[in-house]
């Protein structure tokens, strides 16, 4: 009896679910991109599209392999990752530090926060000319620009996270006579962590954006430069290779922070859709 009902249930499930269930779950996100690429390749093969406007996927792959083989890719990629990584680390660590001090201490909040909140509203791209005047177009200038872009999201969100710590939990920590250090490490930072991680994700996005901007303002290496250079010679497939590299690395770094979120924020009770 029970066996029968189970088998009927599974049968109903199989019939109810569609072709999607026959594809392994991790691949679901790939269905649309693969379809697009296939159609794109077919259309390109028919010769309807101009290869300089929209090169075929196969030729993009070919130029990617050529770039890898010649060592150009490694060179561009390593300098880009160095700039983005260094700027990101600089900006987020400073943002975290100042965000913590502003959140925890009245002094920093009163003296520094108003200025930072004002500077935050200045569009970053508008200060680029100033950066070039002051620091030139060297690596220092680039890393600083990326750092500035990465700074604000972490600063603002760390500060916000600390200040949204539940006052009721703070009372609990007082009842148990937490030391100030314990209050910070066992109450305030865990409570602010969701916001801090959100800030880190936002500043990752800002870092990639500013990397492209910085690499287009004049340099001789980097993925951004590679794109700019290829455009000048109408090598559209290389432009595509560059864009895809940004997409891949942007996604990878975002996934890394997301992984931290699922690890560290397991306790959160939120709507999961």
């Amino acid at each position, binding site marked *: 009896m029970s066996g029968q009902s189970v088998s009927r249930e599974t049968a109903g499930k199989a019939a109810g679910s569609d072709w999607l269930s026959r594809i392994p779950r991790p691949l679901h996100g790939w269905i649309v991109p693969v379809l697009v690429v296939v159609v794109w390749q077919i259309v390109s093969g028919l010769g309807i599209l101009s290869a300089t406007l929209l090169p075929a996927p196969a030729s993009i792959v070919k130029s990617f392999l050529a770039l890898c083989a010649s060592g150009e890719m490694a060179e561009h990629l390593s300098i880009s990752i160095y700039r983005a990584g260094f700027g990101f680390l600089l900006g987020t660590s400073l943002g975290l530090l100042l965000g913590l001090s502003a959140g925890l201490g009245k002094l920093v909040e009163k003296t520094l926060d108003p200025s930072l909140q004002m500077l935050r509203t200045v569009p970053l791209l508008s200060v680029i000319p100033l950066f070039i005047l002051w620091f030139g177009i060297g690596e220092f200038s680039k890393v600083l620009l990326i750092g500035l872009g990465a700074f604000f999201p972490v600063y603002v969100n760390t500060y916000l996270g600390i200040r949204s710590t539940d006052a009721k939990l703070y009372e*609990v*920590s*007082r*009842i*148990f006579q937490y030391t100030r250090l*314990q209050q910070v490490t066992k109450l305030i930072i865990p409570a602010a*962590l969701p916001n801090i991680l959100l800030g880190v994700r936002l500043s990752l996005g800002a870092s990639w954006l500013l990397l492209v901007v910085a690499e287009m303002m004049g340099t001789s290496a980097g993925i951004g430069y590679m794109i700019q250079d290829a455009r000048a010679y109408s090598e559209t497939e290389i432009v595509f290779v560059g864009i895809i590299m940004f997409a891949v690395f942007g996604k990878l770094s975002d996934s890394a922070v997301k992984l931290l979120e699922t690890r560290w*924020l397991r306790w959160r009770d939120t709507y999961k859709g």
Partner: protein
Amino acid sequence: MAAEMLVVHELNKTFATPSGDVIALNRIGLQVKQGEFITIIGPSGCGKSTLLKIVAGLDTKYEGTVLVNGKPIDGPSIEKGFIFQEPRLFPWLTVEKNIAANLSLRKPEVRKRVDELIALVRLQGFERSYPRELSGGMAQRVAIARALLRSPDILLLDEPFGALDAFTRSHMQEVLLDIWQSNKTTMLFVTHDLDEAVFLGERVVIMNPRPGHIRSILPIDLPYPRKRAGHAFQELRHKVLNEFEKVEGPAVDEGAHI
């Protein structure tokens, strides 16, 4: 001579709000002996939580005298435990870590006590659960275990069993009485449940609102363990209830708890 654990004398507390001052406590006077079990009962908004917070040292802005062990309070201290009206668990900690709070579970004596307390509040199997996985009553039991871990001399309880079902509630009442009798903990227990006040307290403090003040203090001269169905119990319960009926306005939860 039994020492006065807690002395409250001419205590006034006013909250300044945008819409004017609210007198939360008006000339509160209360003396509690070491090891005494006091229940405080009164309608919502009569200042019960406010009084407990002042005694706990969480709120130091008041007028009047409050002495714990003969000394004026200057903030929270280890000998004063507090169970809040809500569980107030740390959402990022598991049940056992919530109970340990700022003590380390790696210390064997802490580990042992935490396990004992988890058994006491009947939460075995949930040691590694997060607060979001608990029901309201389970969460409140974690909060109770957390307060008991530090074996305070005086335990301040703000409607601790309000979220529990009748069965768990009466179990927890018995657990509390056991702890009181074996540890000689001084108890200040706020409730809005008439039965609970009479069942637990050696004296029942009856408070009235607007402004919050003590209407009367009734001794409950019944031996423990008390029987709710007993004649003497019902008589005392009526006596407490009568104190409320002298005033107009919404009275306390007369409660259908058997």
